């Protein structure tokens, strides 16, 4: 128990140091652009691929479970939209990103720890946390754009699978998409996304920064990073949903 309390304490101390003693502005600008390239642009391919097919699967499964003629076919479009906007894009895409981006962050910072590169930064008088973690936090502020893309591609996937699979017409699907649309659901989804982005940037960084040992421990830290990031995303999802929707 005391171990967990110490971990929570060191996480918040890390955050405090991350936002202190700033790195030279010109260097920081370059680091942020590099992180955007690594963490955001580098993830677009997998995001598009997964979103498209998951959107398609949601559409097909809804269609196969709606056999009652009283229920309008437009429900397929409605259910696809709601599932993707409310949960799939913000929450499950963030968990997938915890595997991709989170492991990358932990292993890259962990390798720097093992090979004394972090010590080298500290000896030079550089705030290594600001240098390494702050650019990741700023880069992940672009994460909502990734989620917006996941929403759009997911709905396109659902539309194509529904229409070309012969389950629904284009008109019915788009009618379902527009049915009872609550703009606040988008606000809710993007509020969640900002919180998840912060978790995605900081928890894996914490795991990598404070790891001890060698190459094997870097692997273990990456696994722990994925587990803890996912757990925190799920918990945050529950709390935010309670606060904003119930």
């Amino acid at each position: 128990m005391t171990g967990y309390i110490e971990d929570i304490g060191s996480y918040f101390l890390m955050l405090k140091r991350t936002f202190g003693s700033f790195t030279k502005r010109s260097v920081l600008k370059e680091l942020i652009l590099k992180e955007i390239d690594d963490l955001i642009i580098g993830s677009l391919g997998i995001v598009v691929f997964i979103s498209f097919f998951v959107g398609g699967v949601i559409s097909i499964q809804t269609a196969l479970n709606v056999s009652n003629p009283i229920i309008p076919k437009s429900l397929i479009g409605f259910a696809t939209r709601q599932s993707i906007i409310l949960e799939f894009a913000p929450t499950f895409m963030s968990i997938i990103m915890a595997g991709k981006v989170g492991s990358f962050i932990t292993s890259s910072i962990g390798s720097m720890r093992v090979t004394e590169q972090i010590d080298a930064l500290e000896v030079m008088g550089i705030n290594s946390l600001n240098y390494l973690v702050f650019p990741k936090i700023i880069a992940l502020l672009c994460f909502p754009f990734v989620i917006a893309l996941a929403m759009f591609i997911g709905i396109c996937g659902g539309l194509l699978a529904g229409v070309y699979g012969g389950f629904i017409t284009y008109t019915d699907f788009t009618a379902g998409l527009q049915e009872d649309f609550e703009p606040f659901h988008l606000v809710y989804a993007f509020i969640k996304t900002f919180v998840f982005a912060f978790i995605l940037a900081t928890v894996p960084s914490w795991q990598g920064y404070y790891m001890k040992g060698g190459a094997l421990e870097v692997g273990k830290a990456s696994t722990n990073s994925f587990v803890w990031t996912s757990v925190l995303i799920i918990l945050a999802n529950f709390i935010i949903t309670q606060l904003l929707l119930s």
Partner: protein
Amino acid sequence: MIKVDNIKKRFGEEEILKGISTVFHKGKTNLIIGQSGSGKTVMLKCLLGLFKPEEGLIYYEEKAIQHMNEEQQRDLREEIGMLFQGGALFDSMNIEENVMFPLRMFTKQKKSEMLDRVNEVLSRVNLEGVNKKYPAEISGGMQKRVSIARAIVNRPKYLFCDEPNSGLDPKTATVIDNLIQEITHEFDITTVVVTHDMNSVMEIGENIVFLKNGVLVWQGNNTDIFNTDNVDVTDFVYSSDLFKKIREIQLKER
């Protein structure tokens, strides 16, 4: 000059440094030697400010590092160059970017000026034509030389080296040792080298501090060390067959 005054460092219940006092001189290669676990690296990290000793003071010239505020400590660190055991070069940067890094962080020089300085120090460590290569593409000895170049690029007053010869063949190790000594004399800086390599002790040991179980048990130079009667030192120095033979010859000559 760096003065260490009665420093003690504990990890939990275990006391690693048990009240060490010494002076590391300017313009000399100062060596900290001793067996594994004697506290050499902990002492180096205390000198660098990476570990805070529970007791005692470390003076850089006249000012104790413990009495410096954060800004003064940052200024001091800009005057420190460090050669890590594994080189600690940044994997994501090429050699030129690695060496240029301290200049980019701490100076307002133009890129062309920084490039001139990078080429100057790379040529000083006998490395030319590797600017665009990445650390993984060069040998261990070359990585050490790049690390020395990075350490001296910002004209430091203090140079620290942690096991500079580990993992190197004897010939390359000698090249690195000589380079460290030449740089120390050329730029009149205070150099502190942590090592357990007897060849380094012979080559560059102008002021040697011998630690055993966190206690300073002997201090002298590379001539004194072969004439001392201190049992701890002689055990360490003559632990290899080569040095045992040398000892036998010395005793016969006496």
